[in-house]
């Protein structure tokens, strides 16, 4: 029982990170109806933004702690947000009225561009780097064999706060209303006087900023970073979004937690070598049983 609880907590904290990344996939899909395959690489860039910020003399002088955490999260979120906006503007916007397949292939191209430019020696380099400490890891709760550490608490607090914030933003603000309308029908939204280009930029900013937050949480827990590290978490978060019902925001969050838990449980109870396989198995099962996902409303689209 204790072990199960421990696995569950570990799984949900990994899942919270997937959920943050999955939100970006689903929000962007919601408005533009295509999968931004470069999203996992935006996440990767987020870890490098964190890495360089943590290595500045100023942040070094602060040392690990709350101030450093705030700075590094803000930097990665704003940095990734802007990167998302730039990618959309340069790569996807010129193709707005082209077939979706064209945009999809472009997204894969952007993904390769970020991965392989990142490996150049004068950019990040291909060798893994060690992510510096953001805050000290302490044990917050220990009951028998059950251990909850400060990183897990930070992951839950940050992820849940961002999700609630996103919900408020989407449901209660004017731009949020415009975003919802745009994801239902982009053409109708422009006929209402909504500046849909601005809404699309906004969506990329918010979705990518969430990936930036996820990046810091991930790098804190798994402090070896490299330019290809976005691929697997990106793919898993994408599967989480599909599991929840692509385009559905609640679905992306729930899907993230499920994927994280499934992965950790499989690693713990069956075999660590199956941790990735289980996620792809889940993808295959959803695609067969319910392609529209847990919260999807039918009307599937091939991507």
């Amino acid at each position: 029982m204790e072990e199960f609880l421990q696995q569950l907590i570990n799984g949900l904290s990994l899942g919270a990170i997937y959920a943050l990344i999955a939100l970006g996939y689903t929000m962007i899909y919601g408005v533009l109806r295509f999968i931004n395959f470069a999203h996992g690489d935006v996440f990767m860039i987020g870890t490098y933004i964190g890495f360089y910020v943590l290595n500045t003399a100023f942040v070094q002088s602060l040392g690990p702690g709350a101030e450093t955490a705030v700075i590094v999260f803000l930097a990665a979120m704003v940095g990734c947000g802007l990167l998302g906006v730039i990618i959309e503007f340069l790569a996807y916007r010129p193709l707005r009225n082209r077939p979706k397949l064209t945009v999809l292939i472009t997204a894969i191209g952007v993904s390769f561009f970020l991965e392989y430019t990142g490996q150049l020696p004068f950019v990040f380099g291909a060798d893994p780097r060690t992510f510096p400490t953001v805050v000290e890891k302490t044990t917050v709760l220990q009951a028998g064999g059950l251990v909850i550490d400060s990183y897990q608490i930070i992951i839950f607090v940050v992820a849940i706060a961002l999700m609630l914030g996103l919900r408020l933003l989407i449901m209660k603000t004017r731009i949020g209303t415009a975003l919802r309308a745009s994801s239902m029908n982009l053409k109708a939204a422009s006929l209402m006087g909504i500046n849909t280009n601005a809404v699309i930029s906004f969506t990329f900013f918010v979705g990518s900023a969430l990936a930036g937050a996820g990046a810091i949480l991930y790098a804190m827990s798994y402090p070896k970073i490299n330019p290809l590290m976005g691929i697997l978490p990106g793919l898993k978060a994408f599967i989480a979004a599909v599991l929840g019902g692509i385009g559905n925001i609640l679905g992306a969050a729930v899907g993230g937690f499920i994927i994280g838990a499934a992965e950790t449980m499989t690693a713990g109870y069956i075999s660590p070598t199956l941790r990735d396989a289980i996620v792809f198995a889940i993808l295959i099962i959803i695609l067969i049983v319910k392609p529209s996902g847990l919260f999807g409303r039918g009307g599937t689209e091939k991507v």
Partner: protein
Amino acid sequence: MLHVEGLKVSYGAIAALKGISFHVPKGAVVTLIGANGAGKTTTLQTISGLHKVVEGTIKFDGQEISNMPSHKIVSLGISQSPEGRLIFPGLSVKENLMMGAYLRKDKKEIRSDLDYCFSIFPRLRERLMQAGGTLSGGEQQMLAISRALMAKPHLLLLDEPSLGIAPLLVQLIFEKITEINRDLGVTMLLVEQNAHMALKVASYAYVLETGEITLEGPASELASNEDVQKAYLGM
């Protein structure tokens, strides 16, 4: 109020509009009739800024609006009830109506405009909290027209309000179009395949055939024109 001169629009290599000219005087209801594929929707969408103008001009109150972004055109006072209605399916009737008023800040007047829509289409008040996607075709059409009115337009573009709705409701919708024009004095450009109804509510009409205007005149004259009767009125 609206002056279109030599308008050319194309989809890739296909010319959808081959240089059409027409105008809509202030306060009038003008109709553009034509068969399926004639270019009616393309015309309205281009006025609303959804397509690029290849050649020609679109002047609204003297101001050139071709190739302006859609949201700017709405802010100038042109709103549209689009073909297929394009209701936001997941938003309630109320929220759909409020989307129409997206650019407005005059809360009090928005309130009274809502009441006006309900007086024209009482059904919308009954369905106020229902999701737009669950309405019948006729109700969605009422909602699409009302939503466009919520923008407080000077010029209202109506794209085939009779499309896909029950004949009895078609009658009602066209009565309401006349009523709205009379009550609010809003200028209208109505696009229709249903020439019979369109020529009844409009004062002036243009006939559009594969991207070209082939005939124009007062609606009553066109209604008695033999060619029009044969081609569009099934006589």
